[in-house]
């Protein structure tokens, strides 16, 4: 498959279901005390991760953010090592050093989720610089929220990508919330206006329509590869849960994912049914995802805790651990 090929809608459904089931399980594990720290879920936003990542090839790189589980899984991160990491185990993909906010996988070009809002932007720009210098034809993509548009490094990154015509796909997941504050109170300009002011071609789409996301991302990635230069895609979406798990959300009315007309999974399922896809195939996406998550969680629960000495040895590549 080349990145320009369209991914079948049923496969997009499977990716979204995997993200949904993985995150709902994480929520349960977090509530039960099996996931330490804190986690940020992307429930309701799965269409963006699934649609965009299906437009990327294996050589394309991806920088993400604190709400990055979906991006990582859609890019092809191993599910067992994903759970092992977030549950803090030695065999986690980051050996239990990063956790939820730092899932990364060099094997699939996943440059890492990131705990600092906006930090992924210049990292993707630098990755795109490497693709350009090496003439690899690869594209660097970066997911960030509307909240990141208020960071100064957004301007620096857009500007640098534009003047150097770097192969970057900037994907803004606009869920309307900058942590606990509505974006309307946070941003003076619209996301696309910010991109366009840097002479970056920008599109804004319904991010809860995974087919629309996929088609738009494919078109923009294709343009980046053929014409060069960055592109910007705003995906308007819905953050169903709080900023973090446990967020009492006193600042907003609750969103019920299951009943939401906007839920990207429900929307695609209805569309597939209308198109005559057998109900068993649609249902199998959910059943298979749950089975995979069950197996991964069982495996992660059995994983060993990381050792402190191994962590101390990995601060540098080639030096002994120091006190």
């Amino acid at each position: 498959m080349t990145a320009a090929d369209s991914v079948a809608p049923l496969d997009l459904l499977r990716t979204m279901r995997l993200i949904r089931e993985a995150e709902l399980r994480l929520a349960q594990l977090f509530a039960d005390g099996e996931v330490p720290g804190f986690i940020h879920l992307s429930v309701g936003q799965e269409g963006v991760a699934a649609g965009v990542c299906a437009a990327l090839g294996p050589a394309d790189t991806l920088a993400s953010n604190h709400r990055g589980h979906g991006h990582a899984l859609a890019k092809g991160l191993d599910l067992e090592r994903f759970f092992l990491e977030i549950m803090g185990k030695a065999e986690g993909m980051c050996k239990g050093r990063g956790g939820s906010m730092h899932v990364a996988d060099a094997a699939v070009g996943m440059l890492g989720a990131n705990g600092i809002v906006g930090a992924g932007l210049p990292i993707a720009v630098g990755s795109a610089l490497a693709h350009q210098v090496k003439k690899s034809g690869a594209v660097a993509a970066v997911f960030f929220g509307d909240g990141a548009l208020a960071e100064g490094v957004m301007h620096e990154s857009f500007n640098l990508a534009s003047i150097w015509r770097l192969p970057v796909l900037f994907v803004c997941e606009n869920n309307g919330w900058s942590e606990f504050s509505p974006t309307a109170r946070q941003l003076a300009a619209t996301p696309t206006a910010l991109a366009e002011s840097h002479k970056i071609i920008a599109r804004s789409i319904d991010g809860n329509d995974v087919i629309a996301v996929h088609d738009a991302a494919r078109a923009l990635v294709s343009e980046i590869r053929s014409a060069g230069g960055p592109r910007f895609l705003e995906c308007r979406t819905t953050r169903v849960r709080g900023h973090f798990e446990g967020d009492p959300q006193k600042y907003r009315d609750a969103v019920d994912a299951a009943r939401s007309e906007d839920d990207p999974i429900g929307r695609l399922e209805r569309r597939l049914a209308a198109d005559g896809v057998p109900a068993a195939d649609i249902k199998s996406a959910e059943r298979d995802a749950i089975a995979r998550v069950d197996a991964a969680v069982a495996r992660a629960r059995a994983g060993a805790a990381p050792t402190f000495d191994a962590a101390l040895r990995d601060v540098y590549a080639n030096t002994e651990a120091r006190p």
Partner: protein
Amino acid sequence: MSEVRFGQAINRALADAMAADESVVLFGEDVAAPGGPFGVTRGLLDRFGAERVRDTPISEAAIVGAAVGAAMSGLKPVVEIMFMDFVTLSMDALVNQAAKARFMFGGQYALPMVVRLPHGGGINAGPQHSQCLEAWLAHVPGLKVVCPATVADAYALTRAAIADPDPVIVVENKSLYAVKGELPESMPNVTIGKADIARPGRDATIVTYGAMRDVSLAAASALAKDGIEAEVVDLRSLQPWDETAVLASLARTHRLVIAHEAVEAFGIGAEIAARMADIGFDELDGPIVRVGAPFMPVPFAKELEARYRPDATRIADAVRRTLA
């Protein structure tokens, strides 16, 4: 053996590294067409082309942030922040991203990147263009920090930094750029973390780095006229620093002075003093004395900055104090 200026030695190191490895790229403010604010990157654009040698906008956060992404994607970026003072604008990329990537991603990514930071110098550049902030960076696990003091080390440490698989900060003292010295035709490999005995002596150890190496040597010459033989240890690398060499010198002299241009309080000298007070306690026959800048911003006026920067007299006085 040829005589070149300190800045030219860095230039030669950059050119040799770029010739040897096409994944080495250079970017920063005015480093390409203008040849760098201090002329260090002059000629590299012509030799290696606009793909690998690039002028950036005035965007310190994106310069270092892009270096992180480039290093994670197969390049060996060497970036310059025009004055070390401006690294305040790059700190997220350095502290939260570059320093932690290897560790927090479980060793999946190497970050072979170099950030060149001109510091200090006593050139009347005022409070925002003169600071020595290396202790901040040496405090962050995951970063390496080197600070060459000689022409040969300017070359060798720059090459070592580029060859290193971890992010390395190369701190260059602005007062040294024009200093001439010998650059051997065939450079020995320098290991990051090894100190150099700049002058042997039996009576007291002066641990120093960067521009204070020459000032410490001048202090040692003055002390020698009074029959005091001071050993000058040039750290060359601040993170990691050569604890073994400093302890060995202390074991020879039993007196320790630490001299740097940076503010004395909470500086590199504080770390060295604390470690030697611990592992070298039995060797000490006098107080550990630090010489550094006073706890104030770097002042502009000549008379003010001249008194602000440590000089040979202050270092010699510190040696006499620990011998008293």
